């Protein structure tokens, strides 16, 4: 396992998730995947805690902002850094409002993705 620990990817689109998983696993990361906020909370309660959460904003069941609110309410989870993935033009403002560690704009560049994961996992 590389860096500070595993990565949790929360992304509803299976094709995008698969592509991100491939890129990060190429770099030696261990990655868990949830397709929405609810699934992510379930995973966080059973699996070992990840070093970073990559969070999509638009998802069914529980979207990014709802997940972030639930995460902050749970003291065991609130310290995990979050990186938001979005194609939203207002991503910077939204990321700031959510109080997350960072953001990456879609479409994603592999180097950018790897670099932000690298830095965030060493930030704690």
């Amino acid at each position, binding site marked *: 396992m590389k860096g500070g620990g595993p990565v949790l990817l929360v992304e509803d*689109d*299976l*094709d*995008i998730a*698969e*592509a*991100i998983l*491939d*890129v990060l696993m*190429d770099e030696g990361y261990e990655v868990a995947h949830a397709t929405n906020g609810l699934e992510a909370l379930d995973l966080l309660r059973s699996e070992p805690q990840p070093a970073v959460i990559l969070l999509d904003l*638009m*998802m*069914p069941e529980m*979207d990014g902002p709802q997940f972030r609110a639930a995460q902050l309410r749970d003291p065991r989870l609130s310290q995990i850094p979050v990186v938001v993935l979005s*194609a939203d033009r207002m991503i910077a403002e939204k990321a700031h409002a959510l109080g997350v560690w960072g953001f990456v704009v*879609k*479409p*994603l*560049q*592999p*180097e950018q*993705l790897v670099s932000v994961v690298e830095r965030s996992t060493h930030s704690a």
Partner: protein
Amino acid sequence: MGVLSQSPPELAQSTERALLRGDAGDLEEALENGGVGLHRLARDGTILWANRADYEPYGYSASEYLGHNLRTFHVQPELIDDMLGRLVAGQQVLGLESVVVCRDGSQRHVSLTGTVRLDESGGFVDAHGFTQDISERKQGELRAAAEREELLRAEQVARERLTVLARASDSLAQSLDYERTIQTIAGLALPLLGDFAFFDLHELESVRRVVRACDPEATLKLQQTSAGTYQPHAGSALVSGQSELQNALDDAGLRRVVDSPEQLAQLQALGVVSMLSVPLTSQGETLGALTLFFAATGRQHTEQDLALGEELARRAAAAIVNARLLKEARDAIGVRDDFLSMAGHELRTPLTALQLQILSITKMVGQPDSVEKVSTRAEKAGKNVLRLSALVNELLDISRISAGRLRLERGAMDMADAVREVLHRHADELTKHGCEVHFTAAGDLSGNWDRVRIEQIATNLLANAMKYGKGKPIEVRVQREDGNARLVVQDHGIGISAEDQQRIFQRFERAVSARHFGGLGLGLWIARQLVDAHGGSIHVASEMNLGATFEVVLPVEVPPGDEPEVRA
């Protein structure tokens, strides 16, 4: 005084003839019975002598008249005083108009003429005069004056009406905004044609009512009892499309136009006396109706009011049609904008994955032992290319169908084969969505259809079932039924509400918000267009949280007039 059967010149002639004949009896007779009233007065107006024509036509007897003062028989005694004053001063009085009070209290217009007799020293002896009844002439004059006034009033009303029409056109032209137009129309005919008005408009399944009175306070009170929307009553202008003018309005008439029991009570309390209802029609369709009431002012609607009301309704109908067209165009543009932004998002998703895959492949190339990894990654990238091209095809289909350029390429085919092929093609995806498919086929399912399009219908229904019934089994059945082939796709997902079932086959509609489910959301619309093109039908049955069952019925025979195109 007397009714003038002989004019003064004629009287003069008859007395002259009597004098020439030297017949004193004839002279007296002529004076006494002549049509003209004659009298002789003392200085203070006391009647010293008068012939019968001076009092009998007015209902008085000799004793009631002779010896009394002339003043007392006139409505304005001061006129007589004035006449006496002038006579005493030696002047003549010609044609003084006055009004006599008859014994029965009625009045007659008369004209008085008098002259004075003086002694040698110029002292007053007595006054002579005659009285001419001019009532008929006077009434003629009064009638003419009344007619003139009536004409003036009619002209003013006509001017007012023209002003109302001009103002109506102005205010209707000021705004193309639908809501503002509706509010404007409600107040258009006030106060000329009513104390208050109801403006009713057919909207979807019910009628919308806007109430408006001359003053804002009354408007508020009327709004409090109005239901706002209601089902129109049979016999109202809204249903019949006919104008209605009702003076002496009764409860039965009121019941036909109220939208709530509270409103009926209010109209009864207001003492509504007259109602005018005019429909707004456009190309034979009744769009709504404007109903005007007179209550407090006690006025009644006239035929002219009806004509003006109908003219206003014509202009209002044109304004409504224009405002509606503009609103529809704006709404359609809004829907299209939403669709474009959603389509952009959907296209970007496979692009995002594709970009990651291609860039990571680029990095791998040339690295030791990369061949296998590159080929796996390229295969995944290929899948995203397929997804992208499916989306682009969907977009092209939408534009083709919208432009009416959809052409079927019918040929002999078997529906069970086509559906089986579709299931095979989507086996991976079905597995990924956790959907197990139970497929059954029964009967002869050969027919003359466009195979590519039949596969597309099946694909769209299957994609819909996967999307909304993730993790649950899907039943797919094809069967022959009389002259039709039937395709049923049943999922066990979130289901579709009755309200949404009406919309899901429409363009740019989907029951669940776009962000939760991929695709352009036009799969069902496209499926329906393709089914329609084959002369078939598509239905959905569903209950919330109990899944949805889509059923396509296609005639096996080619419908008449829809023979397969001859292709080179």
